[in-house]
């Protein structure tokens, strides 16, 4: 096996080169703005597809096509900055996180609508015939990738270090205020930084398309995770770190697939992301600690008042009445099914809102809890033969405990790192579901899960609807009680100002753990219900995109609004189904929702509208 090593390293270096390019882009933006561009993947996808069109449709020669495609990616960066970042310069840090994420997903889905979701070959005139050097083979594309990586990074280095403009960009990342005092136009410097970062991402996209001889619309998202991992590994704001991180990651993946198993290849980047974030916050070459105990509050919009559960209020009776009587009016099986699905997502959004809305932690892993509950219930039912009520109860308890365990690492992170950390953890859980075939049956999923029965009565048809309605009702009561108590007050206080809260004895760790625990338990109940409702589950239903969709629902309804989240979940889950033609646009709708809501109605549909600056936050 050891004689494979040179081969493994050569392959790893080529792939690692593309990671390094994409990671340098991430670090560049982070250094200048202190935000993570969650739309970076769109630039990779765009670069690859621009190249595809220029080569195949327009028949340009390869050098011209690649150069123009890089220019196209540069313009995508311009678009991302102008649309998602510039309007939010003084907004809470959370906002550009959601807009870049939403816009990135939207752009990728536009590509998907134009070119279809299938993977297409990326044919170039360059031969894929490998050359052999004493037993180690290398393809022309691998050589080109390495060369282009070196040249691109060399040019970037010259730009940053040998031009006045580049020096000014470096100065922005040191001290934006002083840059402006020197007469430099900071907005323009930031714009160009985004463009250069996206151009680098575009090059990475083109190269990896050529390396694998394949393009597909979601390649950018997948590569973006690798870029995050590489960048974090290198020390986040350090460019040379990102390069080393990318190359190391490429080699590690290449080794992993040879010496361990290629199925776990993607887990390496995710694990690297999580482990480095948690235990080695400065990375290989970083010098700053990730976060200080500073005012890193991401979300400073006021929360809407907690709804009261006074049964004297007619509005509440109206809502309850409509929900109870709805199945009488809607008798179509398909429509009832959609109503059931809407309630599932309403409940899921409600539970994510505990963490994202009230505790102020943007988690991109909520579908992992949902999936955990679904798998726990399905496995206990099919493997251990437990009756449904026992499976359901066990799913709630186990997922709740899992959520608390999940919180332990997450609460060490702040700011955009929370989002990256949860992204990594959620991705890791997806990979486990996919690849631990002996336990989860992998991509085939679990089939013929028994329908639920309660007290000897089989639940079916409209029973599903009432069952999930009951879950939603109980969850809502619990969440209202939780938020409208001393505990909830402390949670909202922590969301406003963690240090201020700790100065009066609030233990943020306990709060975060419990918030995650309750949120996960509710998601676990939904998961268990879902497994027995559709009788078939597979990892696809619980991946990162699903987590992002749930976040979009909360954002639409209003972070911190209990009725808002439920409504947001129901609407975003139901609308694409009801407007059948729209179901292809599902993800594009999620992405666009996040972008538009944050830009134009940051408090969400039912959120609390108020002036955006807090007097205390202005200094």
């Amino acid at each position, binding site marked *: 096996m050891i004689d494979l090593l040179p081969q493994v390293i050569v392959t790893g270096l080529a792939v690692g080169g593309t990671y390094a390019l994409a990671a340098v882009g991430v670090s560049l933006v982070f250094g200048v703005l202190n935000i993570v561009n969650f739309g970076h993947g769109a630039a990779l996808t765009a670069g690859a597809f621009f190249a595809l069109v220029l080569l195949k449709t327009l028949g340009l020669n390869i050098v011209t096509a690649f150069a123009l495609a890089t220019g196209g990616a540069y313009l995508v960066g311009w678009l991302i900055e102008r649309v998602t970042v510039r309007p939010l310069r003084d907004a809470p840090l959370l906002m550009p996180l959601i807009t870049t994420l939403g816009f990135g997903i939207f752009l990728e889905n536009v590509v998907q609508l134009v070119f279809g979701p299938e993977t297409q070959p990326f044919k170039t005139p360059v031969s894929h015939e490998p050359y052999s050097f004493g037993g180690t083979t290398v393809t022309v594309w691998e050589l080109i990738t390495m060369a282009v990586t070196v040249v691109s990074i060399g040019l970037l280095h010259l730009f940053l270090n040998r031009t006045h403009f580049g020096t000014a960009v470096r100065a922005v990342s040191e001290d934006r205020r002083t840059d402006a005092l020197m007469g430099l136009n900071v907005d323009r410097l930031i714009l160009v930084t985004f463009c250069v970062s996206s151009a680098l991402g575009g090059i990475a996209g083109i190269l990896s398309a050529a390396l694998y001889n394949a393009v597909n619309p979601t390649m950018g998202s997948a590569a973006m995770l690798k870029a995050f991992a590489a960048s974090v590994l290198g020390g986040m704001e350090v460019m040379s770190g990102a390069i080393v991180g990318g190359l190391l990651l490429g080699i590690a993946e290449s080794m992993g697939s040879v010496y361990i198993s290629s199925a776990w290849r993607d887990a390496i980047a995710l694990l690297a992301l999580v482990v480095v974030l948690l235990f080695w916050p400065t990375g290989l070459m970083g010098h700053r600690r990730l976060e200080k105990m500073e005012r890193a509050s991401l979300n400073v919009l006021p929360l809407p008042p907690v709804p009261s559960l006074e049964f004297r209020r007619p509005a509440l009776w109206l809502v309850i009445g409509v929900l109870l009587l709805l199945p009488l009016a809607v008798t179509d099986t398909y429509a009832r099914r959609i109503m059931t699905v809407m309630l599932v997502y309403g409940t899921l959004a409600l539970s994510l809102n505990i963490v994202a809305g009230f505790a102020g932690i943007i988690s991109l892993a909520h579908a992992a809890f949902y999936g955990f509950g679904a798998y726990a219930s399905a496995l206990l039912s099919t493997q251990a033969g437990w009756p449904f009520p026992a499976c359901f109860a066990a799913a709630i308890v186990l997922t709740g405990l899992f959520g608390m365990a999940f919180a332990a690492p997450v609460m060490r992170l702040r700011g955009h790192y929370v989002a990256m950390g949860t992204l990594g953890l959620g991705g890791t859980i997806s990979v486990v579901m996919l690849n631990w075939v002996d336990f989860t049956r992998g991509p085939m999923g679990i089939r013929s899960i028994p329908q639920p029965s309660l007290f000897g009565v089989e639940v079916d048809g409209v029973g599903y609807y009432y069952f999930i309605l009951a879950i939603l009702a109980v969850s809502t009561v619990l969440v209202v009680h939780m938020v409208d108590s001393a505990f909830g007050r402390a949670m909202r206080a922590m*969301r406003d100002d963690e240090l201020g809260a700790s*100065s009066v004895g609030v233990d943020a760790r306990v709060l975060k753990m419990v918030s995650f625990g309750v949120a996960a338990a509710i998601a676990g109940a939904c998961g268990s219900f879902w497994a027995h409702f559709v009788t078939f589950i597979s990892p696809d239903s619980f991946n990162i995109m699903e987590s992002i969709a749930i976040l979009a629902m909360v954002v639409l309804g209003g972070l911190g609004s209990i009725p808002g989240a439920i409504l947001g979940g129901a609407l975003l889950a139901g609308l694409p189904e009801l407007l059948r033609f729209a179901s292809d646009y599902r993800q594009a709708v999620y992405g666009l929702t996040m972008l538009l809501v944050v830009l134009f109605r940051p408090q969400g549909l039912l959120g609390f509208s108020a002036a955006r600056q807090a007097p205390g936050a202005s200094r």
Partner: protein
Amino acid sequence: MHEGEIVSLIGPNGAGKTTAFNVITGIYPPSAGDIRFAGRSVVGLAPHRVCASGIGRTFQNLRIFPNLSVRDNVLVGFTLGNRASLLSALVRLPSQRREEQRLQAEAGALLRLLGLAEIEDQLARYLAYGDQRRVEIARALAAQPRMMMLDEPAAGMNPAEVDDLNALIRRMRDELGKTILLVEHHMNVVMDISDRVIVMDQGRKIAEGTPQEVKRDPRVIQAYLGSEAAA
């Protein structure tokens, strides 16, 4: 510091006053030395544990909860005194309701003491600056500290508010029996209410004594106004 004393920590910009505060309250670790409070070392404790040991504080740049009402800001201060468990809150047990009523009553008393009762339903973010300062003080008092550390409580206040603040600080000592440590630039406050003044410059203590002694100390005058020698 002694029980029931009002001590002021003063010094020019960058003298290390706020840093001293932050080290005592567990935000940064000291590089050497010990901090003892009521005979027990509080070095290395997390901020919420420092609070539990009986030290309350306010912040120079205000760290109230802008999106909570005044009343809720104060109620969060009672976190340590709350005896209701989360479980009892989730299902609203009668014991939790009684505990909540008790806290509400205590918060009400504190709000009245600080003259905040009339604005208790407003979100803290919309308050005038002086009111925000008092909310922060009320919140810190709610945690029942033995010692209160106030970081520039008079910053941004107008003269009338400063007078009220002086009265309030005296009452905290006289009526509530708190020991008070103060960082302040407003010399009117410092000279008016302090039992003892400690002067810092460039991270060191350069003088200590009654307000009158300190005011006449040439080292203090030099630290504040600069010296002819340096010019």
